[in-house]
């Protein structure tokens, strides 16, 4: 029996031949061989449909129902159509929180990408020993669980016993004795930003560092010989190479920072999150879960999804269009 996969000429030849029974068995075999890849990916697709698809379907149906604590206990919701969406979109708190979260996301993503890229550029220039130490430190930061990091940061910035207040006072930067870092909304969110940026830098740095390996050295040397300063070299030689990587990193950062929950909720503290310092992740948790209005929470979640998707799409189109023009 031939082991060669039959091609179109064979098929044509078989179709014209008088042996009809032989043609049928060969076409079944072809169907079987053609469908083998789909059988192989079927388990993965089934798992993904169960783990991702089913909850998404439930979330969408939940957002159209009135589903509070009594409905939760009876496992049956009341269909109310677009009521939840109308209630959310008419709520001032929603729009305030959205604005605050957009500003917060821009600040976080900006700081993460800029600082991450700068550290990656530094990694290229230093000696091997320093590079290993720096990379080791970054990996340790990356590996630290979020809840532990929040607790340590809270202790460091503590009102009474925090080391941050102590050091700043000792260095005579000012009188930071018992300075409350969580007194104003701006202060609270700045602490959260510092924590998130600190945790996000390692991923950006290591990815950009890998990307920098693709920058052609001859081009850099040629540019330097022609008299270009470091900024010009970066703008004209390095940045175009890094563009696709930065595109991905910025999209990911937007998605993560827009919906961030653990750091703000734990650092600000459950008893201090309120309408004046909500971020979208915390808002959906308090409105939906803590107030036991699950239908409304689902509506807010879906609106968040739409927003992050449109933010990302707008941004990617912008970047890709700029690429095409060049």
């Amino acid at each position: 029996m031939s082991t060669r996969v039959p091609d179109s000429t064979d098929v044509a030849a078989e179709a014209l031949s008088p042996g009809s029974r032989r043609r049928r068995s060969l076409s079944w075999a072809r169907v079987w061989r053609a469908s083998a890849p789909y059988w192989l990916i079927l388990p993965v697709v089934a798992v993904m449909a169960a783990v991702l698809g089913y909850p998404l379907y439930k979330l969408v149906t939940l957002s159209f129902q009135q589903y509070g604590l009594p409905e939760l206990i009876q496992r049956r919701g009341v269909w109310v159509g677009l009521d939840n969406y109308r209630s959310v979109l008419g709520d001032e708190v929603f729009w305030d929180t959205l604005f605050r979260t957009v500003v917060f996301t821009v600040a976080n993503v900006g700081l993460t990408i800029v600082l991450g890229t700068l550290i990656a550029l530094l990694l290229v220039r230093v000696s091997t020993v320093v590079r290993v130490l720096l990379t080791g430190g970054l990996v340790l930061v990356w590996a630290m669980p979020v809840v532990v990091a929040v607790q340590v940061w809270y202790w460091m910035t503590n009102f009474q016993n925090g080391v941050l207040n102590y050091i700043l006072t000792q260095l005579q930067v000012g009188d930071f004795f018992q300075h409350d870092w969580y007194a104003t909304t701006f202060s609270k969110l700045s602490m959260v930003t510092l924590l998130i940026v600190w945790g996000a830098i390692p991923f950006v740095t290591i990815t950009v560092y890998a990307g920098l390996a693709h920058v052609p050295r001859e081009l850099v040397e040629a540019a330097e010989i022609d008299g270009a300063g470091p900024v010009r070299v970066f703008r004209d030689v390095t940045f175009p190479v890094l563009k696709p990587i930065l595109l991905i990193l910025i999209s990911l950062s937007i998605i993560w920072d827009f919906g961030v929950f653990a750091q703000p909720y734990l650092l600000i503290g459950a008893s201090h999150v309120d309408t004046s310092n909500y971020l979208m992740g915390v808002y959906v948790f308090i409105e939906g879960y803590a107030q036991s209005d699950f239908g409304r929470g689902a509506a807010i979640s879906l609106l968040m999804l739409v927003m992050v998707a449109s933010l990302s799409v707008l941004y990617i189109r912008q970047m890709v269009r700029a690429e095409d023009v060049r």
Partner: protein
Amino acid sequence: MRMRKIVAAAFVAALAVAATSATGASGGSAANTLTVWLQVDAQSGWPDVVAAANAQFKAANPGWDVDVQYQTWGTHLQKFDATLAAGNTPDVIEMGNTEMTKYMAAGAFQDLTAEKSSFPNSATWLEGLAASGRYGGKVYGVPYYAGSRVVTYRADLFRQAGVKIPTSLNEFIAGARKLGTKNSAKSFSPVYIAGTDWYVAMSFVYDYGGKIAITSKGKWLGTLDRPKALAGLAAYKRFFNASSRASKTTDETRPNPYDVYAQGNAASMIGPGWFSCCVGDYKGQTAQFVMPSHTKGQPIPGFLGGSDLAVPLGGDKDLAAAWIGAFTDNTSMTALRAKGNIPNTTSLLGSSVNERAARRSWFVPTAKNWVNVENGNILRTMLSRILTNKMTVKQAAEVASDNITFTLNQR
């Protein structure tokens, strides 16, 4: 070649089936375990009482084990909601008396009216606690314990500064100033109160005749912006500024007042009676007195906090009731009383500091949505704004009052 591909595809399919069935056959928890959710207050305050009740239950029901899982006040309701949705609720749960109404109205608990007479001292339950466990004429919660707020203080520091136990707020403020002069470390608080401790702040409001909210024509109305309540809030601000070096925006668990006290950074603290459990090296010099009112000779109204024990839907009612009976019998109640709590029965009431403080008490509005006011931190935000001078007392109280009216009247 075709044979190999068929074998490969069959192998992968078999793996997938095996993987999904393996995750399904997880080792289930022992069928004979009673799951009990208590708060961490019991874990730090009276673990021996819990252990004794467990031993008593196990002796009476051989083959059964008790799994006590300790919860924190901030997270236990969300965890409870998750178990309600999944159908794996605990058999017994401790609920704060301010949290009961919402869950009773939603039908989360089993009816214990028939078993009421089997609980120890059910004929003499403290009315304030028993009322929080009743809804629609049925009994859903068994009173567990109550506590008022008292002042736990360092007798040695008071003696050194020449301060006697105050009989009015003004005397207390004067005493606090003397303590502040004697102990001039910048982080030392003559009276440690966390800025947003609304249990203490609302005591001042009720002392001056104000209220958090009232019902009017079937709807709730926030009343913190009325003159008497404003007077109380202003008095709280005066007292805080004279006596506490705590953060103006922190709550009474970050840090725990007794931790500040145990580090030697406070001459006294206001809190539940059982705070005396955890004062570290100062146990010998620690005593308690009743917080005075602004009127001489009277105690300030104290928040009568307390807990009930309920049996959620899906729990084993008979065994849960048996465990609750073991945990709330006379031995347990006497032990709880010795730790500085108020027992659930009038038959064991004495004249301890805690019990004398409870003679004048206040309670939160008995509204279905009161828990949402607490979860939304409306009172804490108001206090934070008042103490940091971000808003005047009147402005902050008006905002809070509007929010309370809105939240309590929600669906």
